[in-house]
Every structure is written in C-alpha cells, then in structure tokens.
C-alpha cells in the first residue's frame, strides 16, 4: 500500500496497513541534523525571516522556492512520512530591504502597506514586529480591507504551471495537502487591533473575511488543478484555556466562511482538515460537525484536548490527526516517554482507522532529533494493522 492509498483508507475510516504519519512542519535545525546538510525547510526564523529576506532582496525568489520544494520532498521521503503539506514559500510581490540587524521591511508597491519582520538567531524564532496597519490602527485596517477587495487575483498561469511542476516528483509518493483557511491574522503585528475590531467594527471584519475567503477559494481551485489530494487550514483559533474569541463571534465571522471553503474542497472531491492549537471545547461540536470539515489536527493534550474522548464522540465522523505533545513531551521527555505516549495514542485512536499520527503542532526548533525519530519509530512499531489488543 503506498502513502496515498494509506491515507485515503484511513480517512475513509477503514484500516490501512499501518497508521499514516504526518507533520505540518519540521524546522530546519532538526531537519538539517537528520539529513546531515543545511536544509531549507520549515517555518523557523532562519529560513522564513533571514533566508527569505536576503534571497528576495537579491531577486532569487524562484531559486529559493525550488530549493525549498526539493529539500522538503527529500526530507519527507527520507522520513517516510505519508502526508506532504505545502511548504512555507516566499510568495509575495513585496519589496524587501534590511532595516536593522536581523530586521527587514517588506513593502507592497501597489497598496503601500508595509511590515517589519524580525529574527532571533539564538532561538530561531521570527515574527512581524511592526506594520503600517499596527501604526495607523482602524484606518490602517480599513485601507487594508479596501485593498483586499480590489486587488487582482493572486493566481497566475505561471504560478499554476510552476506548482504543477514542483509537485510532480511528489505526486506518486505522497498524499499532498494544499493550504486553505479562514484567514484570522494570528501572526500579524496587528492581531490585537483585529481582535478589538471584531467587537467594535464588526462590519469591517465581515468585509475582511469575505475578501480573504474569496481569494482562498480561487487558491483552492488552483491547488486542486495542480494535483493536491486534500487541504489543511493552519490558522490557530484557540489557546490553552479556550478559544481566542467567543462562540458568537465564530458563528458570525468564521463558520460561514469555513463552510464555503469545505464546500469548495468537496466540490473537487477533496477532504479538508482543520488545524488549530489550543482548547476548542466551547465550539467543538459546531466546528467539527457543523462546518463540513473532514479532519481535526493538532489536538493539543496540554490544552486539555483529550483525544480518547474525541475519538468516542467524533471518531466515526471525522479523522483525528496529531496529539503527540510537542510542548513538553517531545521537547523535554526521553525517547522512552515518547514511545510510550505514541503507543497509548495509537491504542486509543487507531482501531477502525480515522487516525493519523503527528505531533500536537509541529517539529519546532527546540525538539531533540532523537525524540522526533523515536516518535516515528514507535509509530511503525505500534501502528501496524490489525492492532493486537484492539
């Protein structure tokens, strides 16, 4: 059974030959350690802030995108992972200039919007530290929304052809996931402003989600044409104790667009998996069953998401992906601890299919390589169907 079939069977809630394995991202330090060379992968700061900025400033975007794809495919092949998500790519029309050590300013020539990205070499982290929207407040956000409403589509024939070509070597080997989501700006420097506007300027926020989802729908079409096998939405909606905003706000701003997205995926015959960190108990039923999603990824155990309970409650309707804690267990635990947790998770969730193993977020730069490898090894050891004690 190849990876594609393995995932399809598991998602159809039947038992394949073994539990499929997935990671949303593997950061460069861990990947480089495994492959014995500098890997251009993941969403750590070195790649996404430093290399993106420097290579873009030198006009080497295409070269970089190709390098990322080829490293990504090499890594996932080497690790024998079953699902290949789209890597993080430098897809932007913005111009880049350095403004301080490890800080770069990105400016969009058409809209005039700018943002500053910072990188911390010590921890391999990066983030948007400032932006025109943050500086200007509500008028800045309004300007952004107006721009989103009128800007020309992102999908060009070139992009489509390029995507098709780079995915070619992976198509036979993997179940490939494209990207699509309701774009709550969880990584933007103006996220707090956005949260305030959800309460004070709801019509503006309606327009934001309408415009961004319209673009996402065209991206879904393009990625489907390029041959992906499904989609994942990576935007975080929750933190350790609950969701970032109220169920009422989810009903107004998020769920209707979530449904537009899943309907578009389904019209193409492709499943949609929703990733989110954190505790989603207060919207669980509505999000997992009411929005047409086919799978739920991350399932953060330290935020109180109990995968055994979720399996009992939703296991026959959606696929569960994740739950191996990357916060404490994979970061500070021993390989034996990791092996034990994987065994438990598989015993709880794998019987009958509908489970894909992965960490509870990603293989971030603080995870020791041996723990990640122990997780993959245990997935093989315990993940073979038929399960002995099921």
């Amino acid at each position: 059974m190849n990876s594609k079939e393995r995932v399809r069977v598991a998602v159809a809630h039947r038992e394949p030959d073994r539990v499929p394995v997935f990671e949303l991202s593997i950061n460069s330090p861990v990947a480089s350690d495994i492959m014995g060379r500098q890997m251009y992968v993941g969403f750590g700061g070195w790649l996404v802030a430093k290399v993106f900025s420097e290579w873009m400033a030198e006009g080497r975007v295409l070269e970089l995108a190709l390098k990322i794809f080829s490293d990504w495919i090499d890594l996932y092949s080497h690790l024998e992972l079953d699902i290949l998500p789209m890597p993080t790519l430098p897809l932007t029309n913005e111009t880049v200039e350095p403004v301080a050590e490890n800080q770069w300013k990105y400016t969009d020539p058409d809209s005039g919007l700018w943002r500053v990205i910072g990188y911390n070499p010590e921890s391999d982290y990066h983030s948007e530290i400032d932006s025109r929207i943050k500086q200007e407040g509500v008028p800045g956000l309004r300007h952004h929304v107006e721009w989103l409403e009128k800007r020309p589509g992102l999908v060009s024939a070139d992009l489509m052809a390029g995507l098709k070509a780079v995915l070619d070597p992976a198509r036979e080997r993997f179940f490939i996931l494209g990207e699509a989501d309701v774009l709550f700006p969880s990584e933007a420097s103006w996220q707090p402003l956005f949260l305030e506007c959800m309460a004070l300027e709801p019509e503006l926020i309606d327009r934001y989600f309408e415009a961004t989802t319209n673009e996402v729908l065209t991206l879904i079409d393009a990625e489907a044409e390029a041959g992906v096998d499904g989609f994942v939405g990576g935007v975080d909606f929750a933190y350790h104790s609950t969701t970032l905003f109220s169920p009422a706000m989810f009903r107004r701003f998020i769920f209707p667009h979530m449904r537009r997205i899943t309907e578009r995926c389904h019209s193409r015959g492709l499943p949609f998996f929703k990733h989110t960190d954190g505790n989603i108990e207060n919207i669980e039923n509505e999000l997992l069953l009411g929005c047409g999603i086919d799978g739920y990824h991350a399932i953060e155990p330290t935020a109180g998401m109990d995968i055994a309970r979720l399996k009992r409650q939703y296991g026959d309707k959606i696929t569960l992906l994740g739950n191996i804690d990357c916060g404490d267990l994979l970061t500070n635990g021993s390989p034996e601890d990791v092996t034990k947790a994987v065994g438990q998770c598989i015993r709880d969730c794998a019987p009958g299919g509908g489970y894909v193993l992965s960490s509870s977020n990603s293989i971030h730069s603080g995870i020791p390589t041996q723990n990640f490898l122990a997780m993959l090894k245990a997935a093989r050891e315990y993940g073979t169907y038929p399960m002995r004690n099921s």
Partner: protein
Amino acid sequence: MADLKELAAALMRGDAPAVDKMTKEAVNAGIGVKQILDDGLIAGMQVVGERFKNNEIYVPEVLIAARAMYTGMKVLEPLLVKAGVKPVGTIAMGTARGDLHDIGKNLVSMMMRGNGFKVIDLGIDVSPQKFVEAAKEEGVNLIGMSALLTTTMPSMKATIDELQKAGLLKKVKVLIGGAPVTQRYAAEIGADGYAPDAASAVDKAKALLGM
C-alpha cells in the same frame, strides 16, 4: 454611588467615549479621584478580569475594556499625581528571552493597570540582564515574566539567578506565568509567585506585596 456604577458598566462594555465622558463628569461633580479610580475604573476592570477567568468573555472584550479604562486613566492620572495618590505597586513586565507570545503578558499588564498598579512594559524577548536593569529602577517592587514556550522557561530561572546575584531579590518579588508554567515550576526556580490567569495575577501580586 450610582454614576460610578454606570462608569464601571461602560468600561465593562468597552465603551471608551462613554468612559471618557463619565470620568470627566465625576471629576466635575467633585467626587474624589481615588474614589473614581477605585469604584469606577478598578471596580469595572475587576469584573472584566473575573469574567475572563471564567471564560464568560474573551480576549476581544478584555482588549476593548482595557482601552476604555485607559481613556478614563488619562483623565485621572494628572489628578492622581496632584492628590499624591501612589500606585499600589510597580511591576516591570516582559516575556522571557526568546519568547514572542505577548497577548497573555499584555492582558496581565492591562489587568494590573486596571487595579492601580504602575506597569513598565519591557516588551518581548527580554534578556535576564534587561530584567535586572528594570529591577534596579526606583519604585519597582515586582518583576513579571511570561513564557509560552517550554524552551523559554529556563530563561526565567536564569533571570532569577541574575537577580539573586545582583542582590535584588530583597527589593523585588518575582511573579511568573504563561500556559506551560505551573506553581510547581515557580517553586522549583525560586519565583515568589505564579498565577494561571490575569485576574489571579493581580491577586497574587497584591498578596506578595502584603496587601
């Protein structure tokens, strides 16, 4: 007093223009600044903290309440200075070195301000050295550290060690928090206090200062 209850209610709704107007009205009506602060702004912010802790309201509602509170504070601050009203304590807050998660830290800062504390915001990715510098500043009697990543938690210990070396642990109490942090961890690294959420952070801070 009826209108201070109204003021607290406006703050809880996040109605900044109303808070601005009602604070000014209360001042003009001759109500003492300390009383406007305590029974209006602080009273409102305490309810906000409590509701947030119980998941009855969410981050957006806290943010707009805090914004409303600041408009009221702006009116009161010069008067508080004139009247010689001192902050209940001064806390220097930042996220641990390497940590960029600042939503939680900002909420704690807002709740502290909303309870009469002066807050010095050290921002994100704060080095032990920077915390030490802040701890030396006049009036600072609390250090608040926030970590959301398991990998940045050790830097909280490093900070406490540096504070110890600099002989500052008698001057300042250290309060820590963030999703992966626990009471046990706080005890382990010698922090004076831990709190799981912004409202409890205020209670803990007051307790540490003997209030």
